């Protein structure tokens, strides 16, 4: 029962991811794509969680945590890039 539910959820999450990928490809603007990428990250978290349940392992819990952090950092970096044109301002270097 649980297995079936998991597989079903995985399919649903995958469909959601395909939708995000469509948005990522289609755009039309860069922020659209970035939001899509962020959402893909979160979907990945879900996907990996379901997968680790299916695979009956807790080895991927680190991956889930890391994905959460990275997806945040990545989105922030992209946003900062879009806003300021650069990610790390180097005026402290002078």
């Amino acid at each position, binding site marked *: 029962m649980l297995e079936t539910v998991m*597989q079903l959820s*995985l*399919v649903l999450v*995958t469909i959601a*991811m*395909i939708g995000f*990928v469509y948005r*990522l*490809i289609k*755009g039309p603007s*860069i922020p659209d*794509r*970035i939001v899509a*990428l962020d959402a*893909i*990250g979160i979907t*990945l978290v879900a*996907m*990996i969680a379901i*997968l*680790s349940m299916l*695979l009956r*392992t807790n*080895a*991927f819990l*680190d*991956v889930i945590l*890391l*994905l959460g952090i*990275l997806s945040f*950092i*990545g989105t922030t*970096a*992209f946003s900062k*890039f879009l806003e300021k*044109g*650069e*990610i790390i301002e180097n005026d402290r270097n002078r």
Partner: protein
Amino acid sequence: MSLLHLAIFSPFLMAMLVPFFYKGLRSIHTGWFVLVLPILLFTYFLGFLPITRNNQAVEKSFDWIPSLGISFTAYVDGLGLLFALLITGIGALVVLYSIFYLSKEKESLHNFYVYLLLFMGAMLGVVLSDNLITLYMFWELTSISSFLLIAYWYDRERSRYGALKSMLLTVFGGLSMLGGILLLSLMGDTFSVRELISQAGELNEHPLFLFAMILVLLGAFTKSAQFPFYIWLPDAMEAPTPVSAYLHSATMVKAGIYLVARLSPIFAFSGYWFWIVGAVGIFTLFWGSLNAVKQTDLKGILAFSTVSQLGLIMSLLGVGAAALHFDALDDNIYTAATIAAVFHLINHATFKGSLFMVVGVVDHETGTRDIRKLGGLLGFMPVTFTIAVIGAFSMAGLPPFNGFLSKEMFFTGMIQLLELNIFNLQTWGLLFPILAWVGSVFTFIYSMMIVFKTFSGKYQPEKLDKKPHEAPVGMLISPMILAALVVVFGLFPNLLSYSLIQPAAAAIIPSLVGPGEKLSVHISHWHGFSTELLMTIGVVALGALMYVTLSKWIKLYTVFPGKVSLNNLYDTSLYAAERGAYSMTKSYMNGFIRTYLVYIFVFFIGILGFTMWTENAFTFNQNNLAPIGVYEIVLVVIITAGIITILMAKSRLTSIIALGAVGYTVSLFFVIFRAPDLALTQLVIETVSVALFLLCFFHLPQLSRHEERMGFKLGNVLVSLGVGAMVTLMAISAHSNKMFDSISSYYVANTYEKAAGKNMVNVILVDFRGFDTLFEISVLAIAGLGIFGMIKLRLSKKGEEADEN
């Protein structure tokens, strides 16, 4: 290491000392110190005469590279000794002459004598080595020292041209010779000449025999300036005259002669040898003398005359091979050619050496060597004139000088060919005496030109830079000694016959000379009214007539335009080779990385495809495949979509984001294929690299930010499809061909047992195979330092730190 070896190496040791003499004792001409050595060596080598007289030989060996069978075996027999005496004797005379020829103040004498001594040692090594590899080493050393000597006045363009030309040609020949030597050693399993000679019969049957012979002959012909490789010799006349006298008349150009003579016992039984050596020699004789007549530079005449005389000796050596086809020594008249070759070798060294020195004297005292400017010097330089007459008349083959004797013997050798009926000589043999005779006529003409155009005729003081006068005595000693030898050998030829000529000739045709036997060498001035004498009379008569009418027919030479000369062929082919290589390189090295990548990938496809095709390597084995799940298919769809987006994207930012998506999907693959560590790392690295891509994107120059789709190029598509297909095919084949099980079971069993860890990937990384990790850490460190260096270190072109901006 024996005294003999020390004698051979002594010029090299002396060459090391020369700069000290030059710097330390400036007041004395360096040549005086150098002069001692060749005199000592000459007397030392004279001591071998009683041994070689009886066809005995001295052999001293010392190991050089014993594991490869290379030793330095010094071997003194008649032939080697003859050359050693020529090298040291004429070497001493040339050094003496150069003391007066080269000024102590103006010239860099240390260079000159170092090069000259190097050459002398190398030449002694060539003629006294029994081991072919040692011989080759010394052979190349003569090429190099000759190159240095020709370009002695290196600030002149012509000197450098001549040096380069002679270097290219002689080294080309030397390398061919090395090939021949290696083939010989392959056939005979030894580098020793004498051991090869003892197997001569078997070598003749060997399939590689002809190749070895041609390669060795290439070496000999280039060194000895035979047709068509003679072209370097006239250009080598830019060297100082003592060098021309020593290297380019008496010694180095005879190295090829020596090689042919030395290897005759191995090759000479073959008909190819007879024809190649004989025909090339006789044609060189004819061609060289023909060309000598049109020269206007005295050294040019002498250069072509050297070419022609070397051809004479070479043809005699070739023709001398005929003797091997007749067994009995007693009435074997065909040995005459070999004896004539040896005799003329000695004669040529004497008269040509003296003639070069005469030309040097004339050059030194008048400032020119152009026969159109010279004339009427008889009154000023009587001694020089006398020497020139002796040398030139000997060269022309007039009695009572030694050239007459060897020329008669030369004609004898050539006429005897008419009676032979081997190697198609009935049909073609007549060419030999005819070419020989015509060549001799021209030899007569240019010999007369040297004497009479220089010393008689009208004195033209307005064309000369200085007022001519007789040379200093010191400068005349050497040519006088050589001229005296010309006369002495001419009047008493039998002084030489059993001391030098017989042993040398016996070394050239050893199979005919049994133990205790000797070749009969009898040279006499008068042997009745023979055909040879009539030929000589004809030469003199026609030659004199043609010399008198020279101004009428000299224009015939201009009929042949300069463009069809061999020199022009050399120049244009060198130029064409340079241009060709340049344009070839230009055509494929176009500077675009894109093109190079296409080459790399096309070769990748080509080579792998060819191998898979010819080896029939493609297999598809379905046994070992895992079932494909739904997630995998979905992920493949996603990753494919991402990749297509990268390719099709209009803006770079889209490409970067899509690349990030691909990277994350890969990490998802790692998850479903159960590789948590890889997934972790992949995620982090993907994020960092996407950030780095963004950084690069930001720093792109404003101008070239083309926000447009990548152009479509059919070639690129085909190449990339090919690479993809190739890799896929290879992966499928590799997977289908697994020969044995993985070794991973060991790790599974021992990760905790032996390494006290439960994470197998990490245990492998730091324990089982920690070395790889160490160096990957180094790679990261290098990359980090490199990036830091690239960003921080901003050097301008001059190497100073530019202002930080």
